[in-house]
């Protein structure tokens, strides 16, 4: 083969190669997609009563060294020297597969079942707990937030809802309360930027001269229709 023929052959191969490459390029590919909106929700329920993934307990100012972690109810009360607070923790390890640390939490809601309602509309605040506690050990005196009433300040609450029989109150009847959004806290737990020690619920204004009590079902009630729940809705691709 002469040099000229070699050259023609090589040029032809080159052009063929370029043609093959361009025919497979994405520039010539047209794709369309239907609207698809996926979400995933993990619902953590305080059931069975023996589960260790969920713990809850009430602490009482009037019994400052006693533990009430085995009661079938949780109480939030405002009263002079007799305030009561409730602590709850939901282990995210109950979600299987685990919520990825890169997930975007769209909504996280604490669902509490109310069984006794105060006669006045009361605001209940939820605070993210900053240190560990145990269901069988926590007392008024040992609680992570300390014994001072109206502490921490309402302004640092994560979520809030109000309960009471008067018209206009957010939750007026027995059942799961509306409210209790804790999205930013759960997002921090999932991302690993904050440790999950749960939440404390207290009356927005403790020390009321008239006793104002809200009663909620606890894990120990062992009634799946009333147990505390944490509902986390998230997406893995924003």
């Amino acid at each position, binding site marked *: 083969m002469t*040099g*000229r023929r*070699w*050259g*023609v*052959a*090589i*040029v032809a*191969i*080159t052009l063929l*190669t*370029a043609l*093959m*490459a361009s025919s*497979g390029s*994405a520039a010539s*590919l047209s*794709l369309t*997609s*239907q*609207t*698809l*909106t*996926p*979400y*995933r*929700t*993990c*619902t*953590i*329920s*305080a*059931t*069975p009563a023996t*589960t260790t*993934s*969920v713990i809850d307990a009430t602490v009482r100012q009037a019994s400052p060294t006693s533990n009430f972690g085995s009661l079938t109810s949780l109480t939030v009360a405002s009263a002079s020297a007799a305030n009561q607070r409730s602590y709850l923790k939901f282990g995210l390890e*109950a*979600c*299987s*597969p685990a919520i990825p640390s890169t997930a975007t939490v*769209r*909504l996280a*809601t604490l*669902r509490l079942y109310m069984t006794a309602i105060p006669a006045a509309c009361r605001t209940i605040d939820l605070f993210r707990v900053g240190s560990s506690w145990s269901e069988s050990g926590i007392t008024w005196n040992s609680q992570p937030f300390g014994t001072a009433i109206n502490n921490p300040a309402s302004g640092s609450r994560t979520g809030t809802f109000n309960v009471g029989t008067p018209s206009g109150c957010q939750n007026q009847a027995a059942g799961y309360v509306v409210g209790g959004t804790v*999205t930013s806290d759960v997002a921090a737990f999932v991302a690993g930027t904050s440790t999950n020690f749960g939440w404390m619920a207290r009356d927005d204004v403790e020390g009321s001269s008239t006793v104002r009590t809200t009663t909620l079902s606890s894990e120990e009630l062992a009634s*799946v*229709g009333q147990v505390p729940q944490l*509902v986390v*809705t998230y*997406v893995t*691709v*924003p």
Partner: protein
Amino acid sequence: MSLRLAGLVLLALSTPVVGWAASGTLNADTLGGARLNVPRCTSAGLTVIQNLTAGTISSITVGGIPSACGSATLQATVNNGTTTGSGTAAVPAGGGAVTVSLGLAPAVTTGELTDIVFVGP
């Protein structure tokens, strides 16, 4: 001779193109170097509530659905680790809330996963 040299140069330049094409990847949402963004009808935080019948999840109610998802089909799957229940329902034109009945009713356990997908509108 110079033509042969030019041809060799062109062939050398074209060779990597063939190599790139051979290394193209195909994933769920990636085709080669191109990425396809699947349109979404919302990024809102939706409420998902389990409706119970005798300790099992017979249906779920999805709330907070914006009107942009109105008339979509909502597919839901609930899994408790041993039982999977699925169902579909049409989203009202104006959004709002929709209840999806499940074919099988998983028992309530400590943790359940619910996958929901809006197809359309």
